[in-house]
């Protein structure tokens, strides 16, 4: 290998590694460097897919895949985590953890239109109109709104919930106005 083709600092580094006895030749140094680069690319989620659409050096066992997903999520590589989860769930249909990862990290489902009554639309519209008109007056408060009527407002979330009760499925808008 002709080191003159490398930038001077890299050529010096290669010579230094050989001089220290870590490697026998320039080819060995370059190969080691490329392996590290490939490993880094796979870990960072930027690795090139091979012909079968999978990353090189993918983990094989279910436990290794789970560990790799966790690592990808922790480092913010969400797309790579999804790919691992989807592939892993397909590869290990009886592995509970991978099935859960596959389901939760899967792409969102296609939106499904849901029948809505004219009354529900009117109530929702009234809430939006109230917010447009009054949001500035209630800054710093949690509010509960229903069909354009203010049920309660308070800086305390717990206070509002205590006044209106369980909001789930009751078309009560619960939000903090900042």
């Amino acid at each position, binding site marked *: 290998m002709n080191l003159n083709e490398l930038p001077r600092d890299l050529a010096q580094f290669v010579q230094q590694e050989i001089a220290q006895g870590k490697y026998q030749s320039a080819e060995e140094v370059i190969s080691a460097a490329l392996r590290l680069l490939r490993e880094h690319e796979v870990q960072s989620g930027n690795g090139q897919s091979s012909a079968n659409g999978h990353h090189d050096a993918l983990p094989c066992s279910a436990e290794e895949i789970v560990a790799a997903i*966790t690592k990808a*999520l*922790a480092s*913010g590589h*969400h*797309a790579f985590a*999804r790919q691992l989860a989807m592939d892993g769930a397909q590869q290990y249909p009886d592995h509970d*953890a991978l099935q*859960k*990862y596959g*389901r*939760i*990290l*899967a*792409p*969102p*489902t*296609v*939106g*499904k*239109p*849901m*029948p*809505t009554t004219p009354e529900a*639309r009117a109530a*929702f*519209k009234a*809430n*939006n109109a109230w*917010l*447009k008109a009054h*949001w500035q007056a209630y*800054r*710093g408060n949690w509010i509960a709104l229903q069909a354009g009527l203010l049920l309660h407002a308070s800086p305390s*979330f717990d206070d509002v*919930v205590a006044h209106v009760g*369980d*909001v*789930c*499925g009751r*078309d*009560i*808008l*619960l*939000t*903090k106005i*900042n």
Partner: protein
Amino acid sequence: MALTFAVTGATSYQYRPATPQENTPRVVLAIAIEGIVTEAIVDTGGVYLLCHPRLARQLDRDASQAVSPVIELLFRGVFLQGRLHRLFLTLLAEVGENLGFEATAFVPEPHEEEGWSDMPSILGFYGCLERIRMAIDPVTETFYFGSTG
């Protein structure tokens, strides 16, 4: 050039700052998270649905329904601890029909409640809005949405 897509529903949105510290307005939509109607800001650069911790408490989701373990998500310069869940979201319509879909949601751990800023919940694009056709008319402050199915 006319741009058309099949709209399922439309709603007005609020265009206001999301926190007391901010002056820049954001697109704030009323949505339902697992049947709880609340507001969320649209953040096309964000990931997942980030569920407000206090609202998460109302959802009554236990850790067994999430992927484990707890992960950390970088949120406004701070790492938040939480778990990933699959939640059902509904885009609510003033005109047309609501649109429901399942998305990946980051639910902060209960101890993060105090550390959460004044942000409402956040609709990220990746893992959340990525399969929704949507358009915004800033003149009428209307958010249009449609199914990709």
